């Protein structure tokens, strides 16, 4: 379970994040929506100890993030292209992440088999470094690396952006499959409300750093969100 208590983040006078209380139970598929500048990336960054919140605390499965680094062993993330090591080949990148999570090469290879369709023959066995792949293919590699080693918490920022339609559909299936076992907490943010409503059980709407809506996904959710964003 992930708990955010009284989290605020201020830059000089602007408050970009202000969450009094948020609890994400273990195994939930959690969606975060909001316009540009709503604080989605900031919230994820606070969760991963990349940004230090001005006040409050983040607790990830009984580990207080500001005090201990133990959360790293069961949490993984893909936020943006700074999560890729450009001079590595995709295989080397997967092995690297795998090794840090205690997986052997063989285990990583076995894990990657299930993503053959998702990769569409453009990631593995190529002759390119990650820096030379297209944005979409880079994202594919980054997202799959974040799923390596059975993490309990997976944080993905805008995983659907930059992907072609087929890949988007496949990624949604992958995330849905993963959520079925109810052991992995998945946190996803997106600009595309349709994608999020399809994948997530629960959707939180942020605006100017505050939680405006917190809904359990139902067939009505998409209409509700559309109505909100229309203004």
């Amino acid at each position, binding site marked *: 379970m992930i708990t955010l208590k009284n989290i605020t983040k201020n830059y000089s006078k602007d408050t970009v994040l202000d969450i009094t209380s948020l609890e994400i139970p273990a195994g939930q598929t959690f969606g975060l929506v909001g316009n540009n500048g709503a604080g989605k990336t900031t919230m994820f960054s606070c969760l*991963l*100890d*990349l*940004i*230090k919140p001005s006040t409050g605390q983040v607790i990830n499965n009984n580990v207080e993030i500001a005090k201990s*680094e133990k959360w*790293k*062993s069961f*949490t*993984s*993330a893909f*936020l943006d292209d*700074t*999560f*890729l*090591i*450009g*001079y*590595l*080949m995709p*295989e*080397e990148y997967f092995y*690297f*992440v795998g*090794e*840090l*999570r*205690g997986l052997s090469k063989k285990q990583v290879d076995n894990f990657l088999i299930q993503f053959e369709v998702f990769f569409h023959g453009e990631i593995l066995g*190529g*002759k*390119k*470094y990650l*820096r*030379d792949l297209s944005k979409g293919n880079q994202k594919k590699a980054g997202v799959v690396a974040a799923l390596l*080693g059975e993490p309990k918490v997976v944080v993905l920022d805008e995983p659907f952006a930059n992907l072609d339609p087929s890949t988007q559909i496949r990624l949604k299936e992958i995330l849905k499959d993963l959520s079925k076992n109810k052991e992995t907490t998945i946190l996803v943010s997106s600009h595309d409300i349709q994608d999020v409503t399809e994948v997530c059980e629960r959707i939180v709407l942020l605006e100017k750093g505050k939680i405006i809506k917190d809904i359990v996904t139902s067939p009505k959710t998409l209409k509700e969100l559309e109505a909100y964003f229309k203004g």
Partner: protein
Amino acid sequence: MFLTFLSLQWKSFFRGESVGANVMAKIFKWFWILYFAFLTPILGLITYKVIKEDFQVDDPFLFLNKNLIYVFGYWIVMRYFIQPIPVVSIKPLLLTPISKTKIVRQTLGKSIFSFFNLIAFFYLIPLTFELVDNGYLINNLIGWNLTIIAIVYITNYLNFLLNNNDKLLYGIGLMLAIIKLLEYFSIFDFTVYSEALFYSFYVNPLFAIVPWLFLIWLYFYVFKFFKNGLYIDSGLKKKTTEAKIDDFSWLDRFGKTAIFLKNDLRLIKRSKRARSTVIAGIFFLFYGFIFYFQEDIWGSWMTFFGYLFASGGFLFMFGSFVPSWDSQYYSFMMCQNIEYIEYIKSKWSLVVIGTVISTFLACFIYSFLGVEAVYAVFAGGLYNIGVNGYLTLWAGAFTKTPVDLDSSKMAFGGKKAFNMKTLLISLPQMVLPIALFSLGSYYYSYLAGCLIVGFTGILGILLKKQVFNLIIKAYKSEKYSTLKAYKQT
């Protein structure tokens, strides 16, 4: 037009994240420019005399012409490494209503006033005065000078073509080496032709028109080349190379450190910037010779300084950019299943392994100078491992300049990581060991000086745990601002 370009550069400079470091780098750059601008004319003035008296040559001017072929060769190689080519900043201008011809003319025109060209005038003018003074004919010298200037500008525009073409560069380097070897073993002497060729411009000053015609042709060629390259899929695109997996699994015996070690080796192999930094570090191995042959002038403490540097090439060149080498994916590293201290330790191990290898290589190289030199090199190596390694790493916590792994420019071109703290730590890194050595060698013996320095290093190695607690504190408190600064590339 020119003002628009200027104001763009001005903004990119002052609105950057690390303005302080930028200013320091600029100051440093100007320091070197002034240094050379001061030194070069003096060099021009004394060339004639030095060649005549020290080299015992009858006609220094002939000697100069004889060696010009090497001068231009090295000139091209040096330019390639340090003169920046402003290609990348052009991209955003493509969609503006500035015509392509203007962009190219601007870029090529600006390089006329590049320091690398102006320095030639700084040398040639005093040299010419000296030559006239010694009875050479002024009219003929004008022709000769014009030739040299034309060639300097030819190398200037050649550099535009050479940029991003390693093979051509290595070709030139190899050719120079072969020419020199052929001359050394008296198989074939190119310098005879160099002498005849360049001297002919003195004898017949009108010949100078030939290099100038070539220069004009080259200018238009480069102009066309550049203009045609102004598409993002051709000239402005970064070159990609075919990738090959590097296994390095033989390193696995080093445990968790090996995971990072493998990546760092790949970094050095595949990133131009990292590679050229390591190569520059290798040259440090020979640093000791500079002072060894001048020991009468400087004294033994300077020789010791040279030996200390010899084993520290990797540490000073590569190590001072740790952890900036990982700047492009630092947030990724911060989220992986490894504690910060483990990550920092693995970086330290890399620097130490590099230093241990350099120390052994240096010991081998300097063994030709006798056992005393080996003692000093070994002591210096211990100090580099036991003290300087920590200091460099500690300073790294405050060095927040991101490193662009895909560009190869160093020193003058790229922003080097400068800030006050990095400059300040060079004091204990350099001054302290020399002071320790001088203390020992002055009161006791040369060997005692080496021993003191060496034991300080060993002491540092023994205190690893305590020192790391201090280092990790610095890293943890700087983590968030480092992450923020690295986002700016």
